[in-house]
């Protein structure tokens, strides 16, 4: 039985095409993916991402417990600040990628991928022996609305929330007399906020934001554009670009891993070794040179030898070309500027390794 968010009827009324995503019936597009994509890059879009998981971890040992689970240094996290993390297994493989917020002393909020909530909870419970912590899955109580784009913050400010949190911070606030959490985060590469609100208020808030956003050019945005937006920003999608056999170093996430953390964490020996010596593969950005679209699972070749696989690929509505993310063997001669081949329908198509992101991020204003 597929689950529906509390905004399901709103999506239907807006003419959305619904698809199954991670067990949820979600809007993939309302009008056109390309138009919705451009709306977020040029004005502001609103997304229902209520399928995502919310997990609260609290208790005396909440900090050392979380610090055991991720390669990031949670001791550095101050109140109302967020950090992008990976939940790693003993081999350094990624069980999920998360945002962890410190709400207050001994209390943390975790935003998890919808497809991974069960695995995350199982893994946390398996790791909690000896820690005085309580893990509560709050996913069924909360809706999450993302408001993203260059005009997103102007819109929210116009509604009375004038002192928005800074990038990767969260705060309590009130919109239309509804208590909510506002966080300066997103999955588009644009500035904007994500709003966590109890389910019973989500429909009202959605309508109010769409109405107030008219003057700012707001549109509802489906998962289709969410995917093209995050690809341009080279943000990872769990299940495509990240999995349990891929480490943060291999995924190009070394920047997020603490190099000074003294506490042990799952996968530390593998990750520390890879930080020094490199991983078994590396994630690169590709720009198609020949006509053709690289898709998840297509093979990558160099000198007629298979050297990798596409994990995400598609069109870039902003650049007007075709882009992709691929894992390739860490060969010295495969660097930015190298030409490789993607096998599309049994034919080689040239592609160039390029720097990521594909479109500059504008979220750290």
């Amino acid at each position, binding site marked *: 039985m597929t689950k529906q968010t509390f905004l399901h009827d709103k999506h239907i009324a807006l003419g959305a095409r619904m698809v199954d995503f991670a067990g949820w019936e979600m809007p993939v597009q309302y009008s*056109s*993916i*390309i138009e919705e994509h451009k709306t977020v890059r040029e004005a502001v879009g609103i997304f229902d991402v209520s399928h995502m998981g919310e997990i609260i971890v609290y208790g005396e040992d909440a900090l050392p417990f979380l610090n055991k689970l991720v390669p990031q240094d949670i001791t550095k996290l101050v109140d109302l600040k967020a950090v992008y993390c990976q939940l790693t297994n003993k081999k350094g493989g990624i069980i999920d990628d998360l945002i962890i917020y410190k709400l207050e002393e001994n209390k943390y909020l975790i935003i998890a991928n919808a497809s991974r909530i069960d695995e995350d909870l199982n893994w946390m419970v398996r790791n909690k022996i000896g820690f005085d912590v309580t893990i509560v899955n709050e996913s069924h109580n909360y809706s999450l609305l993302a408001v993203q784009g260059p005009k997103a913050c102007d819109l929210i400010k116009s509604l009375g929330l004038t002192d928005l949190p800074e990038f990767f911070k969260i705060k309590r606030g009130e919109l239309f007399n509804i208590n909510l959490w506002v966080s300066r985060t997103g999955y588009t590469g644009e500035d904007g906020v994500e709003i966590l609100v109890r389910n019973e208020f989500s429909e009202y808030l959605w309508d109010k934001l769409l109405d107030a956003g008219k003057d700012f050019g707001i549109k509802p945005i489906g998962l289709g554009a969410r*995917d093209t937006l995050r690809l341009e920003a080279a943000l990872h999608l769990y299940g495509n670009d990240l999995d349990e056999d891929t480490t943060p170093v291999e995924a190009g996430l070394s920047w997020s891993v603490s190099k000074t953390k003294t506490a042990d964490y799952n996968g530390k020996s593998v990750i520390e070794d890879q930080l020094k010596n490199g991983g078994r593969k590396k994630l690169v950005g590709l720009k198609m040179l020949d006509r*053709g*679209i690289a898709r998840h699972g297509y093979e990558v070749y160099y000198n007629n030898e298979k050297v990798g696989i596409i994990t995400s690929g*598609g069109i870039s509505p902003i650049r007007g070309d075709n882009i992709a993310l691929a894992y390739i063997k860490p060969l010295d001669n495969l660097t930015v500027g190298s030409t490789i081949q993607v096998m599309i329908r049994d034919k080689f198509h040239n592609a160039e390794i390029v720097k990521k992101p594909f479109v500059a991020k504008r979220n750290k204003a």
Partner: protein
Amino acid sequence: MNESMLCTKTHEYVLETSKNKYEVGITDYAIEQLGDIVFIELPEVGSEFAKNEVFATIESVKAASEIYMPISGKVVEINEEIVNSPELLNDESYENKWFIKIESSADQVEFADLLDYSDYKEEVE
């Protein structure tokens, strides 16, 4: 859409333009379902295909789809315009949405499983 076209359950259509000459494309329903069309690959003029053989690939933002021959035939012309500007397929004012023109000597057996446009519409809606 021309009411005299015949459709497959996989959303291709074939329309007889003169004796043994046909145009082949995909239905308006298929285009609507695909959403933004961003890539089309058509065969070379002169290539021959059997009924149900893949002759083209069409890609929306989300995914690639293969397009099958509704009847057997030899390609005599391809629609270069939609190859160069696939987004024309999403443009309601654009009328030349055919993919290829073929010559065919297909017999009644090949037409047996094709649907009238009205029956097709009933089937998909």
